[in-house]
């Protein structure tokens, strides 16, 4: 078993990993930038090592500095958390080469899912459904028009290197495509240094549903049901729940089996998540695989009773899974909301010092937070300051508990999206489970 774990991350997820390590008797090492000297994850770890100045490129993304910190402190394993270096095959490889156990899949499995074009091909070969689209980049605007006519409008025009919705646009006709192609290509070039574009069929009002999988190194794999993550703003998830109000038993089984096939196709070991788009007619399509722990993993934990970090550590230590598919529990319903340091009206980041923080308590309530009263929220990192999770025996009970908790959540000194979260969870559309990716525009901002 792992004896000393370095956590190559910060914020709530570093604290989350420390909690499980403490329970399992594993010593912890935190790393931190100059902006995080006073951060809670640094205070709570058994040891800590400074790795650089505030910008992530000079600290939390510094592979050498992190591997060196592990060497210095005698850590025998590294947990990458999510974001940052968690899906970086070079980092996983560097850990391996330094004789450290990387708590995650192999560098090869990470790389196989890292390229969108390659992942599509692998999934097609494994029999996992993918959205119809151009295979590889589209060479010219004329080729794009011809392809789009074959796929059928509406189509999504996407930048190959894109992210955060930049360089991405829905188009409904030849004329729109011709106009959009040049402008999005220019934008993608300016932002990402690559103007490579590709096309996918636009699925109207889809749901974003993902399957949590666990594979050990002995050929065993299970899926831990689904998470519904459709409510997003700017392609960032805001509300997540387990299970999905839309997915029925037949679909659950089909998606679970597809997710296991996806993992097996790349020799996946450890915890991972296969993301799908689900159509109104219950067709589903592979979107991507996240080769790490997800932000929203707590909803799965509350429904299954499993500690996913514990299983990540056990699997990384070579243990086989101690349970089979039929043993995976399904107890009630859990909903998570992400609390962002964000002005809810202007939707702009709101860094600053938290003068007062009061977390809600109560039956079925879990808080995974990065901050406390007096914490500084800097502009250098993700705006998420915490996650609030509510569990209940039914979706209605979980919703009631979450609403009560949101009402007593107090943050002073910075602006947060708490008012928006309250509106979402209290809305009729949410109660009715009308969770599609256009939820916010359609039911909350009434723009669509």
């Amino acid at each position: 078993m792992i004896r000393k774990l370095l956590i190559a991350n910060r914020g709530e997820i570093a604290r989350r990993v420390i909690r499980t390590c403490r329970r399992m008797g594993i010593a912890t090492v935190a790393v931190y930038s100059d902006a995080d000297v006073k951060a809670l994850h640094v205070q709570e770890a058994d040891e800590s090592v400074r790795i650089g100045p505030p910008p992530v490129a000079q600290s939390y993304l510094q592979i050498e500095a992190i591997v060196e910190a592990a060497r210095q402190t005698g850590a025998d394993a590294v947990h990458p958390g999510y974001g940052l270096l968690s899906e970086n095959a070079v980092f996983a490889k560097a850990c391996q080469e330094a004789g450290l156990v990387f708590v995650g899949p192999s560098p090869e499995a990470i790389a196989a899912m890292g390229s969108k074009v390659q992942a599509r091909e692998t999934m097609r070969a494994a029999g996992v459904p993918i959205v119809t689209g151009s295979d590889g980049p589209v060479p010219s605007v004329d080729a794009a028009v011809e392809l789009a006519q074959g796929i059928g409008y509406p189509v999504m025009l996407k930048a190959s290197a894109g992210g955060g919705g930049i360089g991405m646009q829905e188009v409904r006709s030849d004329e729109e495509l011709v106009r959009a192609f040049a402008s999005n290509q220019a934008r993608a070039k300016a932002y990402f240094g690559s103007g490579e574009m590709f096309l996918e069929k636009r699925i109207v009002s889809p749901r974003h549903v993902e399957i949590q999988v666990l594979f050990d190194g002995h050929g065993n794999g299970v899926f831990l049901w689904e998470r519904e993550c459709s409510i997003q703003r700017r392609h960032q998830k805001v509300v997540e729940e387990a299970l999905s109000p839309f997915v029925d038993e037949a679909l659950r089984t089909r998606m679970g089996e597809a997710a296991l096939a996806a993992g097996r196709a790349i020799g996946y070991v450890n915890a991972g998540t296969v993301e799908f788009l689900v159509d109104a007619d219950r067709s589903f399509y592979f979107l991507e695989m996240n080769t790490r722990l997800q932000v929203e993993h707590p909803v799965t934990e509350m429904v299954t009773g499993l500690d996913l970090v514990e299983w990540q550590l056990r699997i990384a230590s070579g243990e086989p899974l101690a349970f089979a598919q039929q043993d995976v529990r399904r107890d009630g319903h859990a909903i998570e909301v992400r609390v962002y340091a964000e002005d809810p009206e202007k939707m702009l980041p709101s860094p600053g010092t938290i003068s007062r923080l009061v977390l809600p308590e109560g039956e079925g309530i879990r808080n995974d937070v990065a901050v406390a009263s007096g914490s500084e929220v800097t502009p250098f990192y993700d705006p998420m300051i915490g996650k609030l999770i509510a569990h209940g025996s039914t979706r209605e009970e979980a919703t009631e508990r979450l609403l009560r908790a949101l009402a007593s959540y107090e943050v002073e000194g910075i602006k947060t999206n708490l008012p928006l979260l309250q509106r979402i969870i209290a809305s009729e559309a949410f109660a009715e489970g009308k969770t599609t990716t256009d939820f916010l525009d359609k039911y909350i901002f009434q723009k669509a």
Partner: protein
Amino acid sequence: MAKIMATMAGTVLQVLVSEGEQIAADQDVVILESMKMEVPVASEAAGKVTVVHANPGDFVNEGDTLLEVEEG
């Protein structure tokens, strides 16, 4: 003369215009990054860019002047 100011604290990711350039109202002139979010700053005025204060990598506070525009 109009001053185009930072809408939030963060890092200057990109300056999209240069001194002497003619710009339109509502044109994006600078991209700021804060908390992993890229936020374009648009010019409120149309005219000629006279001074560019912002450089990529600079840290700015909300209200700092990014560039100056001679209206017209």
